[in-house]
């Protein structure tokens, strides 16, 4: 095996990591702030991707143009879900995680069903930016490069938002210490709702970009939710840089294992890695708190 091939596989792995990071973004936010595993995350990604595909089929509009609308719709929907559903669940910790998990799981079914009703079961893809940049002997898929760039950009923007804006700081305060934040006058409930809404919006934005890479139908939401979870678990609770690192690891592992072993084993690789990482480092690679 030549050095060029190895380099290409590595490159593919990094690009794949970018795709993972992108599909994990909104999830990271919700999990980090509220410790809610949003099993409906994948549904937001997929429905948004299908919307982009459908719009492209009908009107030949690039998914990038659909992105702001998808973001806004998902933001509103996420806010409604949190405000009217999640907030109604009992607050005791022991059952809270289980019930919010199950609630978002029920939501994922509902959204998958809604997607089937609206878009049908056919697989859709967006035949846009399907080519590659050829840099020397290397091929860099255009859509994947875009996804990689977008992931980096969005993560950076999110980090900035959380550091530098009052709203972002309120979110961080709430996730670090809810009672303390409340004592400082922050409306913890409202902040949580906006965090959930933001996470949903980001998931939708990712979906629009991912429509360029994946062929999807409404029932494929789980794939993205699991990917997102693996990324967060490996990278560490509450760390966005960790999530990027986690995504990179998953992407590289996926690429190497698929090449040197086979594709089937590569499918199990994310799970094995995440279990191993968590056993050794229970807080993930860069987690700030114990899981």
């Amino acid at each position: 095996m030549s050095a060029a091939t190895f380099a290409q596989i590595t490159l593919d792995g990094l690009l794949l990591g970018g795709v993972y990071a992108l599909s994990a973004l909104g999830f990271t936010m919700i999990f980090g702030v509220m410790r809610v595993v949003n099993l409906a995350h994948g549904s937001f990604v997929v429905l948004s991707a299908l919307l982009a595909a459908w719009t492209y089929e009908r009107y030949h509009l690039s998914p990038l143009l659909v992105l702001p609308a998808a973001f806004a719709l998902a933001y509103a929907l996420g806010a409604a879900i949190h405000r009217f559903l999640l907030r109604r669940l009992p607050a005791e910790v022991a059952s809270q995680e289980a019930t919010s998990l199950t609630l978002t799981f029920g939501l994922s079914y509902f959204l998958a069903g809604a997607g089937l009703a609206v878009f049908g079961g056919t697989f859709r893809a967006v035949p846009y930016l399907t080519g590659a940049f050829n840099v020397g002997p290397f091929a860099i898929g255009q859509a994947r490069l875009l996804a990689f760039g977008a992931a980096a950009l969005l993560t950076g923007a999110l980090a900035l938002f959380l550091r530098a804006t009052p709203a972002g700081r309120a979110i961080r305060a709430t996730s670090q210490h809810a009672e303390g934040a409340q004592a400082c006058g922050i409306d913890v409930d409202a902040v949580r709702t906006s965090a959930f809404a933001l996470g949903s919006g980001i998931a939708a934005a990712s979906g629009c970009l991912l429509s360029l890479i994946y062929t999807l139908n409404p029932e494929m939401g789980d794939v993205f939710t699991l990917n997102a979870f693996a990324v967060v678990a490996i990278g560490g609770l509450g760390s966005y840089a960790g999530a990027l690192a986690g995504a990179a690891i998953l992407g590289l592992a996926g690429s190497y294992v698929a090449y040197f072993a086979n594709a089937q084993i590569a499918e199990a690789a994310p799970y094995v890695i995440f279990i191993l990482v968590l056993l050794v480092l229970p807080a993930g690679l860069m987690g700030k708190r114990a899981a």
Partner: protein
Amino acid sequence: MSARLGLAVALFVCVVALLAAAGPFLGGYWLAVVYQTLLAIGLAYGWNVISGYAGYFSFGQITFFGIGAYTTALLTSHTSLDWRLAALAGGALAVAVAAPAGAIMLRLRGPFFSLGMLGLAQTLRVVAASSGITGGGTGLYLSATVTPLAVYEWTLAVAALAFAVTAAIDRSAFGLRLCALREDEQVAGTLGVAVTAAKVRAFLISAAIPGLLGGGYAMYLTLVDPPSAFSTRLELQAIVMTVFGGIGTLWGPLVGGVVMSQISEQLWARFPQAYLMIFGGLLVAFLIIVPRGVVPALASRLGGPRRTRVNGTPAAVAAGGEP
């Protein structure tokens, strides 16, 4: 044994015997319906022990179901072993795998455990799909020599066993230890509860039951492939039924199992297109209206908490003495 307990046991035995005797008279369709309901209930009970009583919400108990199914399929294909013995072997192998798996996975907490178990299920599915011995992605074709009635009786027996074991746990010190570690594992540990032993034991029970059920399923389908053996649908069904009925309760899985089977059946027959939406919507609605499940909600309506008697002093219980 108190009179009340004796009566309850007698009633239980009667119901099971009735169901067993009714088997030959149900007719093909109703036999299939009751079998699949019993399968769902059995899986729900299996899930309930580790997730409900111990509080370790697992998304991957189907791992053991799949192990049971494949083991039974392989043994019946390659040896002349009676399928029931093969299914027992399947259950035994499931427990054998659960011991080390549990020791590892139970170190994870909360959603990490949940999704870690899911990962385990996926990993095993991939192993089954890539091994020649398990037939790879195609699976194992079995000859249709076992009647649905036989599978029904087997499943009834296992589901009854699952219920009985849960009843025993519910009234025992072991059950109390699980509840203690569910509420706050650290505190329970400092109070002297042997936390690791308790949760591993619960995990093994939660592996044995699906393991035994999987064997019957293999003989029922006559084609064991990775998606059916490690069926996400069955996993999710067990979870939803238990959560709806009342997670961590004795009657929850039964109530949930029976009610949700009927709702599912009706919904699917009438609204095949909108099924997912209605199902998901109902689940969300149930969680908002009865977040702890139907059985606890009904119990509190009908007046007062149920009291369970536990033998032994608190110290003896905490020290891990037998119930």
